[in-house]
């Protein structure tokens, strides 16, 4: 047994006995007295608790903006941490802070440290921060300012040279390539470093809860007030974080964070990149993994419908070996997946679409950014000339699991892409789905919204402008 060690402003913080689900936010605020980091929601949706977490990446540090409210302390083991207190003090502000202080970027000020940290990440070249400023702060809510001054401040400040040499050396000093374990009484946690070690741990602890980014499990703790007994954190297994990109397709390790997969997904198809851009805010994409998004079996899960439409397969692994299944077959029923207790999701493989494929991926939600879909859908049409020779259509939010629209696919296959074909495909959706009415939309709306994606595809292929966001960009 050992404790958690991490770097904070150059010093090593050691915590001997660690509750496996103690959050970094609570530790900062109520143990370390670092109260600049705020709790706005305790579920990763408002960004008031944003910190920057760095980990070794070769000879450099990869910094990531993360929500500390749903970051369990063991996940910080072997990492470096920057909080708002690590930056400029009142009389020696960073250029970003000084600009924000002068231009009205804060009113009540409660969300401000979170914005400062998200945007400081941009200044120091943190991972995933090569985005428009509005995207970087999509996971930071401000209720006072209307955001204008914040965006303006971010655009106006220079990058900050970040000397991470000392951090690299210090992190190497506390790094270990062995499984780390710890606990607090009967409650235990493990951080394996290899997939083999993970398989062995799971064989020994089949009831253990696997945690990748904790963007879902975190809420079981902060909102569900659950007490989880044994946790295995899989965020430090390098093998699971590999992305293999080739002409035949993309193989994404289960531990790859959405932010890290964003570019590769976008190269698969632009709609896929846009979909990833709208999964959570940056802090969520910096934590949430492609594998976790699949493994937790959400009926909405923004990733799976698109991956199913693209023909993805899933590889599960255990101490006994591997098996590979079609992704759609993984989702058995609501809350039930085809994963045995000792298995873990190892990777997902997505074949590269043909250049002639017609693809449309769409997410419909009340708010464009950082919202959960009412309906999320994807359509891939394999074409031979004018004829649709293969159709894969999948939706989330329409049934108890992400699933294919087989009747709809049937209506499309073998036809040419005409208004009549789309009308038939839309009519077939009623055979495929009998959605629920809930807080995100009524059943009738869901059917109509799903149909709208098919119509959007048709309008797009017939050349009519159909993208609100493209229209918006004209006003930029």
């Amino acid at each position, binding site marked *: 047994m050992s404790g958690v060690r991490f770097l904070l402003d150059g010093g090593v913080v050691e915590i001997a006995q660690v509750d496996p689900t103690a959050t970094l936010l609570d530790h900062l605020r109520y143990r370390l007295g670092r109260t600049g980091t705020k709790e706005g929601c305790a579920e990763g949706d408002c960004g008031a608790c944003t910190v920057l977490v760095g980990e070794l990446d070769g000879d450099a540090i990869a910094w990531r903006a993360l929500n500390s409210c749903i970051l369990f302390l063991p996940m910080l083991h072997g990492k470096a941490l920057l909080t708002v207190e690590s930056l400029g*003090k009142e009389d020696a502000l960073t250029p970003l802070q000084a600009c924000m*202080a002068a231009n009205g970027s*804060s009113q009540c000020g409660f969300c401000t440290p979170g914005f400062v940290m998200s945007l400081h990440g941009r200044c120091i070249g943190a991972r995933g921060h090569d985005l428009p400023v*509005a995207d970087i702060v999509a996971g930071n809510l401000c209720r006072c300012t209307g955001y204008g001054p914040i965006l303006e401040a971010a655009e106006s400040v220079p990058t900050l040279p970040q000397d991470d040499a000392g951090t690299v050396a210090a992190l190497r000093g506390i790094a270990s390539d062995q499984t780390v374990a710890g606990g607090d009484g009967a409650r235990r946690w493990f951080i394996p470093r290899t997939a083999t070690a993970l398989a062995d741990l799971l064989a020994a602890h089949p009831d253990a809860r696997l945690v990748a980014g904790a963007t879902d499990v975190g809420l079981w703790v902060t909102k569900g007030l659950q007490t989880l007994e044994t946790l295995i954190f899989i965020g430090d297994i390098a093998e699971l974080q590999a992305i293999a990109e080739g002409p035949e397709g993309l193989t994404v390790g289960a531990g790859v964070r959405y932010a890290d997969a964003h570019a590769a997904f976008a190269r698969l198809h632009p709609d896929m990149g846009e979909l990833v851009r709208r999964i959570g805010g940056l802090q969520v994409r910096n934590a949430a993994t492609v594998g976790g998004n699949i493994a937790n079996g959400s009926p909405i899960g923004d990733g799976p419908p698109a991956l199913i439409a693209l023909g993805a397969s899933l590889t599960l692994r255990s101490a006994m070996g591997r098996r590979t299944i079609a992704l759609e077959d993984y989702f058995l029923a609501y809350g039930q997946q085809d994963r045995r207790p000792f298995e873990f999701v190892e990777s997902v493989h997505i074949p590269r679409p043909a250049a002639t494929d017609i693809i449309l991926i769409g997410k419909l939600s*009340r708010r464009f950014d950082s919202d959960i879909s009412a309906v999320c859908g994807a359509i891939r049409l394999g074409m031979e000339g004018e004829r649709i020779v293969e159709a894969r259509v999948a939706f989330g939010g329409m049934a108890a699991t992400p699933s294919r629209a087989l009747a709809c696919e049937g209506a499309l296959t073998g036809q040419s892409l005409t208004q009549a074909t789309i009308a038939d495909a839309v009519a077939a959706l009623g055979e495929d789905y009998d959605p629920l009415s809930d807080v995100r939309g009524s059943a009738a709306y869901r059917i109509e*919204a799903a149909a709208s994606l098919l119509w959007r595809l048709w309008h797009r292929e017939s050349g*009519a402008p159909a993208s609100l966001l493209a229209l918006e960009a004209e006003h930029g």
Partner: protein
Amino acid sequence: MAERDPGLLACTKPSNPHDSAALHVSGLARYADDLPEPAAMLHLAFGQSKEAHARITAIDLAAVRAAPGVVAVYTAADISGANDVSPVAGDDRLLADGEVICVGQPIFLVAATSQRAARQAARLGEIAYEPLPAHLTIADARAAASLIEPTQRMARGDAAAALAQAPHRLTGGFDMGGQDHFYLEGQVAIATPGEDGQMHVLSSTQHPSEVQHLVAHMLCRRSADVTVEVRRMGGAFGGKETQAALFAAAAALVADKTGRPAKFRCDRDDDMVMTGKRHDFRVDYETGFDAQGRVLALKLRLASRCGATVDLSPAINDRAMFHADNCYHLPAIEIISERLKTHTVSATAFRGFGGPQGMLAIERIMDDVAAHLGIDPIDVRIANLYGPGRDVTPYDMQLTDNIAPQLIARLRADARYDARRQAIAAFNARNPVLKKGIALTPVKFGISFTTTHLNQAGALVHVYADGSIQINHGGTEMGQGLYIKVAQVVADVFAVPVGQVRITATRTDKVPNTSATAASSGADLNGMAAYNAAMTIRDRLTAFAARSFGCGEKAVRFSDGAVQIGTEWMGFGDLCRKAHMGRISLSSTGYYATPDIAYDRAAHKGRPFYYFAYGAAVAEVAIDTLTGEHRVLAVDILHDVGKSLNPVIDIGQIEGGFLQGQGWLTTEELVWDDKGRLLTHSPATYKIPTASDRPRHLSIQLWDGENVQPTINRSKAVGEPPFMLAISVFSALHQAIAAVAPDKRALPPLDAPATPERILRAIADHRAA
């Protein structure tokens, strides 16, 4: 240096940053939960009602008491004094007593050694209920004639007769949703027991005096025994005007019972379930008008869901009536205002305080009239504006400061409204999927508490012998920049840099009997009170200087941190030290009460407002007619803050208010189920605008004018009015939807908020109409 007329303070104000800006960006600004916790601190959570309306037949708290970390558990029976946390009516229980009247209502209170322990234990309570009939919606309550107060009527002329004679008539109606405040800092209070029965409460509240009084009554103490303090809130927007009292009272109860400091920091989901929101309204109207769209008669019915208790609903609904004219002269009008009592959390104050709902109603009517006649809505709006000879409101107040016509004309030109409307028509004609809309809507917002006695404020200014100045007043800082505005006023009086003024936390032991910081009145009232306090001291210093140097008082001038006395110059600090040695008091209170206002609520006639603030916005939107999604593409705002006390702060209020209003009317949907449970109780499901929802083009200009009333610096209030500029977005969405069937002489039936689902439904209904 300030003139004797407070309307003539220094002409151009520098935009001093928010006084805490450097603290905000460095994480050093302390909010209530940021103070170090004493080891003995107890943490609190409520056991909440799962029923909307029920008699409590049994409470079993054995498991709660036995849970790890639990120190004490209290029910209504443990409250020795008044079990009341209401602002006016005495009907908000701290802990339910025999009956629950909404889901989430507190039934018992857990004190534990950690927040998690308290929350976990609170879920273990076993409550047995005998369900009673519950009215959850406006329709339910109306059917049951369930009201929080009698239906109110504001009228002028004979609306029915004028309707009958009008050349054109139409009827219509729509629903608008409520809104959660979503202040980023949730409700929080810390109570610390003092010696001899005293209690100190640090509360995130807009109304420290009310918290003080309620805590005192609850504990059977006098007001003088309880001190309430607030340095800053992490946002409030009206949500901490009355709602903070519940948490402060709970903390005080535990602190009093246990003798230990107690903190109630409410979880976000609990906060959204348990605290009040903006009122949702049902609007129905019948209007008669001429061929130009000039309204000749209007019968307007405003029905609001007030929730389970009275709270501030009477005044909020009054304000909805007061703003149902907006900028328009409505010669024959009858407004019926129903205040419905439902078994849902009591609706409360929220930026605009009913004004947005009343104003949205009349703007909808303007759009409806325009659609009916097939003319540009801007022409209908202009035809109906108040003007010479048509300048008396339905409540008989004469307008003396109407700038709406000029302001609208300027914005119409600056924003190129007419050219853009033409371009949009062309765009819509060639685009089958995407449709655009544009609208210009004005705002006229009445400034003053309509409950007249609330329009008063006090301040306390100390000048120390070194020339440093401390300012305290009854207003609270929730991010709106009140503290820096008032500090500027005081600095101007003494002609010293604003940095010489130390701003201190609002405390009931410094300035007593304060009104809530609300109704946009913070700077008007407290700025003037602070001005009066500072002037009292300056007059003493002037008299002392004149006496000491043997010159006339007119020869004493305060300028640039120094004082000219006859031909001599002296530093301000030097004069203060001399004055202290000369036994001159350098401390003073100041007081201000808004003049000239009076209102007869029984008749709904009088002058409830000291003045009006004006503004207008042009919004251009686009919708996707397949999915119902929309984007707000461009917004141009021209807004009147009088002579600004601080332009950067004022523009910040305008932009923030606008986007909050846009959220109310677009993405922020509150959803309740058929048991009265709120389903949208976290940011996962309740969506306030993000940075990308801000229009890509957002221009904000300040109207170049001054308040006709002698307010501080001739400025105008700015907190609430800009919220209603966002009505332009809702109006533009109607125009975009109408473009799917441009020849129809009808307004698309869109309810608020305009979610994709509602827009899609409105498109279908409009096509079918």
